[in-house]
């Protein structure tokens, strides 16, 4: 409490150190000392808090930095895609200079029409009335608009001679031809010649040949006509606009037809609704019901919803889109299943499908997208998909993505140098990916227990893949037992770490490699025993002479590196009171024991013990034979000394190893230890 006040005092705005200190010092030494202590405590506390904050910031910083680096990659890709698209657009512009302009001219016109179609139509057609004679019937049709018009020359079908000059008016549903009036009166310039429905019109481009240039044919059953434009550009424009208008009309007709069909359907389904008594009444009841439905759907936001949804999807505002979907779902839940509602429902469903596809593609792993999509981005897409009720799909895609990332990361590793080094990296990458996926999965799929089994299955397959790679590098490369056991222990340790996090995959590893591992142990055992036999035949029971003192001390160091101390056995500077055979055996045994204990497991205990026992027994047999041999009658003492080193010093080292690994020293080995006493009794 006092600390708090002190801190407050010190950090207050009106704090004046001189005044503060002088006031304190007035009261004598004791309060000053007390104060000093308090300040000290405060400063310690502050320092500690500072440290904590730095730590927190640091971890946040690391996470942010990771996200940023991922983002950077994404941005680079985006910029590359943009450049590509830009190039594409420029090339497209170059390709169609003419048609592009035509569209550009057309666009604002269309917009104007959209603003006030009625007025525009009237103006258009008024223009027609003013200019063309005898078009009153043409202008009377509601909704008819002028799209394009221009002067053309009509040519003779056979000879291509010019017949007359005409003006062509393209309306949104038909093509009107008017001929020039030679003796014009007032503003009227043309005389109506014919109006042709666009549906039955075929436009044929005529390739320029000889005198005929820039012309096209219009087939209107039963006759056909050829018109020539004054430039290639103008012709191109006519052909493009004609085709576009025809397409638009076709689309419009299709829509109308569908609307009519729907209307008919509506009328058909009307009477079959459960409320038959209502339906049996007159039409106006139906219309009243319709009106009610429209009112139900007539809410402003509901009407705009499909467009808004489109916009959200286009802007990749997936959260907003899902919000809208949820809103409309809850709204429509209470509505009756009337045709109008059904139709609206279908429109929404269509967009939900689009939205889902968009989200799924977010998670999809494709060749051109970077594999290192930010984990947050994935989480976001997953969260929205879950809200849409597509958790299974999200889950499988999410895991697929993670698989690719793991594969990619593993491929990034370079295989060089020692096997154990590579395996260390491999394990590091794989297991950290695995645990990261686990963490991400927890965050992305909270409360979805069904998905967790998918995760477990995924882990199993990934684990199998990993073990295949692992086995290829560790066992197929004919590495030594020491290397193998080191690699296995690395992987095992990683597994144990994962198990601490709640994901136990160690038994997979164990199951899948135990066979190879046992084979490797047996092979190594066989080799060692063979070499013991070989050395036994050569043994002359001479102390080891290393020639010089430096050589000797190097040898001693060498032995020390595997944990054996032979300094006591050195005499005369360069002599060691053990045979070469003995020291080599000890070295081999130490390495073997280390390796075996590294991969010790209760299931393998028997094999490990048996291996060590067999190796020792082989050496003891050699000692036995040597002691009994006449040849080494005078060396018995020396042999016994070697035996002592092997069976007591070495064995105690191994026993120590067992102890440090907190594994029970097996009685079989204790029995081997007792051999020395037997050998001693043989001598005496």
């Amino acid at each position, binding site marked *: 409490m006092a600390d708090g006040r002190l801190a407050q005092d010190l950090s207050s705005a009106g704090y004046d150190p001189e005044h503060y200190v002088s006031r304190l010092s007035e009261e004598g030494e004791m309060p000053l000392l007390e104060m000093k202590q308090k300040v000290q405590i405060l400063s310690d506390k502050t320092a500690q808090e500072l440290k904590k904050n730095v730590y927190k910031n640091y971890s946040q910083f690391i996470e942010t930095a990771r996200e940023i680096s991922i983002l950077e990659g994404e941005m680079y890709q985006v910029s590359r895609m943009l450049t590509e698209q830009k190039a594409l657009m420029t090339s497209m512009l170059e390709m169609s200079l003419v048609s592009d302009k035509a569209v550009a001219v057309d666009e604002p016109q269309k917009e104007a029409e959209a603003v006030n179609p009625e007025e525009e139509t009237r103006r258009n057609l008024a223009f027609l009335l003013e200019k063309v004679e005898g078009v009153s019937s043409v202008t009377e049709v509601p909704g008819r608009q002028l799209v394009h018009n221009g002067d053309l020359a009509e040519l003779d079908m056979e000879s*291509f001679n010019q017949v007359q000059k005409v003006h062509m008016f393209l309306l949104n549903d038909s093509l009107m031809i008017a001929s020039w009036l030679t003796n014009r009166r007032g503003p009227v310039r043309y005389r109506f010649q014919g109006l042709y429905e666009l549906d*039955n019109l075929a436009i*044929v*481009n005529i*390739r320029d040949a000889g005198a005929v240039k820039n012309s096209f044919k219009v*087939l209107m059953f039963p006759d056909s006509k050829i018109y020539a434009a004054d430039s290639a550009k103008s012709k191109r424009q006519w052909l493009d606009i004609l085709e576009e208008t025809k397409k638009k009309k076709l689309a419009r007709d299709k829509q109308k037809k569908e609307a009519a069909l729907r209307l008919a359907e509506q009328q058909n389904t009307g009477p079959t609704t459960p409320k038959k008594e209502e339906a049996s009444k007159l039409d106006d009841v139906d219309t009243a019901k319709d009106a009610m439905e429209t009112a139900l759907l007539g809410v402003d936001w509901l009407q705009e919803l499909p467009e808004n949804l489109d916009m959200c999807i286009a802007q990749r505002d997936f959260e907003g889109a899902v919000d809208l979907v949820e809103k409309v779902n809850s709204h429509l839940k209470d509505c009756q299943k009337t045709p109008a509602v059904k139709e609206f429902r279908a429109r929404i469903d269509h967009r939900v499908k689009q939205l889902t596809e968009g989200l799924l593609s977010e998670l999809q792993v494709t060749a051109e997208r970077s594999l290192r999509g930010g984990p947050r981005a994935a989480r976001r897409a997953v969260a929205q998909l879950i809200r849409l009720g597509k958790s299974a799909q999200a889950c499988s895609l999410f895991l697929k993505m993670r698989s690719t990332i793991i594969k990619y990361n593993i491929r990034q590793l370079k295989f060089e140098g020692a096997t154990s080094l590579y395996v260390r990296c491999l394990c590091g990458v794989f297991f950290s990916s695995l645990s990261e996926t686990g963490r991400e999965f927890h965050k992305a799929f909270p409360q979805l227990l069904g998905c967790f089994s998918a995760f477990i299955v995924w882990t199993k397959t990934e684990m199998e893949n990993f073990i295949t790679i692992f086995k290829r590098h560790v066992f197929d490369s004919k590495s030594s037992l020491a290397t193998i056991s080191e690699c296995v222990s690395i992987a095992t340790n990683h597994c144990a770490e994962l198990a601490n996090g709640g994901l136990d995959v160690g038994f997979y590893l164990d199951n899948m490699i135990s066979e190879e591992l046992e084979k490797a142990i047996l092979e190594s055992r066989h080799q060692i025993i063979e070499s013991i036999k070989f050395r036994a035949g050569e043994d002359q029971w001479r102390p080891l002479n290393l020639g010089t003192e430096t050589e000797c001390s190097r040898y001693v160091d060498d032995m020390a590196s595997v944990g054996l101390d032979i300094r006591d056995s050195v005499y005369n500077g360069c002599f060691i009171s053990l045979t070469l055979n003995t020291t080599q055996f000890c070295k081999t045994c130490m390495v073997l024991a280390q390796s075996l204990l590294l991969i010790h497991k209760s299931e393998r205990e028997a094999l490990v013990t048996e291996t060590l026992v067999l190796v020792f027994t082989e050496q003891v047999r050699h000692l036995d034979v040597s002691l009994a041999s006449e040849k080494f009658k005078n060396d018995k003492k020396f042999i016994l000394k070697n035996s002592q080193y092997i069976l007591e010093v070495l064995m105690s080292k191994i026993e120590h190893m067992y102890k440090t690994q907190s594994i029970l020293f097996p009685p079989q080995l204790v029995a081997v230890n007792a051999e020395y006493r037997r050998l001693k009794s043989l001598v005496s």
Partner: protein
Amino acid sequence: MASKAKASQPAVIHKVIMVGSGGVGKSALTLQFMYEEFVEDYEPTKADSYRKKVVLDGEEVQIDILDTAGQEDYAAIRDNYFRSGEGFLCVFSITEQESFQATAEFREQILRVKNDDNIPFLLVGNKADLEDRRQVTLDEANQRAHGWNVPYVETSAKTRANVDKVFYDLMREIRSRKMKASQQSNGQKGKKTKKRKCTIL
């Protein structure tokens, strides 16, 4: 001047229509015939019309080729095209069975529109240079042509094999049909006059 040059052009025009599915090589055949060039790039045709002066068995005539769009969606418009034709080259690709199947539809439509079972018509198997990718056997094509009572010719717009042949053969058919028609109308006139005479008698 120009009008004079046009006036001197031969009066006889034979109107040929290229029909067939998209991508079978209608335009390639036409361009090879017209300009002796082979266009490798494929760009769907909308509808192109060509006219060329040719010498047919010593007689100078004009050929008018309407290269239709294989992908035309408007059936009504296809009808309009067909109405304007006097003879048809119904093209398919020997490397694409579907295009061969489609010829039956085209044939049916043409017969319906023209209302004439003996309309000049050639069944053309294009892309004969791609023998290794052949999907339509000579036998089945010949069989179909025989069933329709029309000739079957295999062409290659790439190597120009049989390209001129199909156009000239079709023009000959058209010419003979026109001659027959004029004879018939003459004959009919004769008959009529005879009949009239009879009534007089």
